[in-house]
């Protein structure tokens, strides 16, 4: 009897159970295996392998420098167009998102089929990348900023409606119930009980989506949807790397500035 207790107390207790350890080890090796396979697969087309490419990298990157800043005056228009595209798309999306977000919030739309329908449509919409939308709209409407604006609108609508519906689902339901109990109709309930609770987050999320749209709109031009990406694509096609580098730097600085402003505004809001 004493012997048994002795062996029990002396046995070192592992930090994690053996089963967890086994699971973690198996998952680790599966992930590693897929990783090694992916690396091998993605490098199969490379002529001289990884080391050759990395050696090459320095020589090629050198071609981009020094950037040719003399083209700056010529790209302001394209840059302005890019920002305008993002502004218009964000605005339209912010307006269209209101009914969609309300319809896809479980606590407001109590009619289940309608809720599931809007949810499914939004989920499908969000699986399509922005550039693919742009490619389709360019095919439909021809080259220009209009397909770009449409692509951005549809793309950001999916994100925005989801984020805002989640915000709506997390509101305090008590004011809504109080409003309903004292005889407010659906629109009164939404306007006086829901809107004040959601408005700060709504503005913040719209700004966040605006950031995403700026980032997306700088590359939409690559497929012919207007803006600065169009200019960048042309320069790359002519192998004019110093000019391309200038455009890349301009994009970089623009994104940084917009992100900074939007961050400050959001901090002030919340």
């Amino acid at each position, binding site marked *: 009897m004493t012997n048994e207790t002795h062996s029990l107390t002396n046995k070192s207790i592992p930090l994690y159970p053996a089963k967890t350890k086994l699971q973690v080890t198996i998952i680790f090796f599966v*992930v590693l295996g*897929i*990783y090694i*396979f*992916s*690396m091998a*697969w*993605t*490098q199969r*087309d*490379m*002529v001289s392998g*990884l080391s050759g*490419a990395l050696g*090459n*990298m320095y020589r*090629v*990157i050198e*071609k*981009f420098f020094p950037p040719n800043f003399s083209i700056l005056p010529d790209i302001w228009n394209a840059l*302005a167009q890019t*920002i*305008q*595209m993002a*502004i*218009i798309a964000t*605005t339209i999306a912010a307006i269209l998102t209101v009914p969609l977000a309300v319809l896809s919030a479980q606590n407001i739309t109590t009619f289940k089929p309608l809720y599931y329908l809007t949810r499914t449509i939004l*989920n*499908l919409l969000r*699986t399509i*990348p*922005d*550039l*693919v939308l742009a*490619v*389709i709209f360019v*095919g*439909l*409407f*021809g080259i*220009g*900023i*209009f397909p770009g*604006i449409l692509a951005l609108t549809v793309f950001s609508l999916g994100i925005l409606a989801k984020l805002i519906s989640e915000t709506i689902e997390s509101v305090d339901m008590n004011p809504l119930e109080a409003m309903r109990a004292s005889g407010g109709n659906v629109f009164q309930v939404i306007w006086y009980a829901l809107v004040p609770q959601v408005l700060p987050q709504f503005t913040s999320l719209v700004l966040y989506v605006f950031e995403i749209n700026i*980032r*997306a709109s*700088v*590359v939409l031009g*690559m*497929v012919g949807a207007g803006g600065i990406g169009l200019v*960048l694509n042309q320069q*790359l096609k002519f192998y004019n*790397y110093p000019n*391309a580098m200038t455009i*890349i730097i301009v994009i*970089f600085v623009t*994104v*940084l500035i917009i*992100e900074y402003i939007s961050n400050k*505004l959001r901090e002030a809001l919340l």
Partner: protein
Amino acid sequence: MEKLQLPPKPEKSLFKKIRAIIITILVIALYVWTFKNIDIDWGRAIERSIDNFHRVIPKLFSPDWAAAGKVGLAMLETVFIAFAGSLMAAILAIPLSFLAAKNMMGGKAVSTVGKWILSAIRAFPDLILAILFVVAVGPNAFAGVLAIAIGSTGMLGKMFSEIIESIDMEVVQAMEANGANKIQILFYGVLPQITPEFLSYAIYRFEVDIRASSILGIVGAGGIGTMIIFASSNRNWNEMGMILLAIVIVVTIIDFASAKIRRKIV
């Protein structure tokens, strides 16, 4: 009946009033600037769309099943690019996030530098990184892997550093008081607190990267994007329909699986 009276609203400070007015004016100015300068050729857009509508839309919804094999293979490559890229990013982001977290390396200067590095990386759109890497390592899928890896590092590093900043520091202090060294604190005090959330965000990033890597082929960085650009320049909308279907299915499956796994981890 007596009219009900609402209590008076609290007085807003002058500073807030002025700030609100300035912001309103700026926003209005921004819109005026936008709508004055934007010129959309409505006539051409409408004419084109009437012309193209029956040529594009019905075909998108009747995918070209003959191309299914080709599309599937390209989509598989896309998944591999996203996987390799996001795993690389998850590993690269760890040291950077410790650098950027305020409560780890000590000193506000270090964390500010770390935060600047991360936001500088984030400012490059994925596609721009892909352009640079295509020029550097050639037009192949590996350029896509590198673009995804670097692009995701910025975002993951930011998320990771926020997680580190939110850990319970009392555990760390208790260990310090008991005489644990830095390595011990890292392994027994910090890592157990952050690992589940790190994993969760890394998996979430994989979801995002699937979408990102499906378009990288537009600049030649492998995956299904290459087919998108061919299909659109050949105006082969049936094939485009197939590609769209493949993207929608794969993204939906991965979103679903990742949500399941993340719910289990955290």
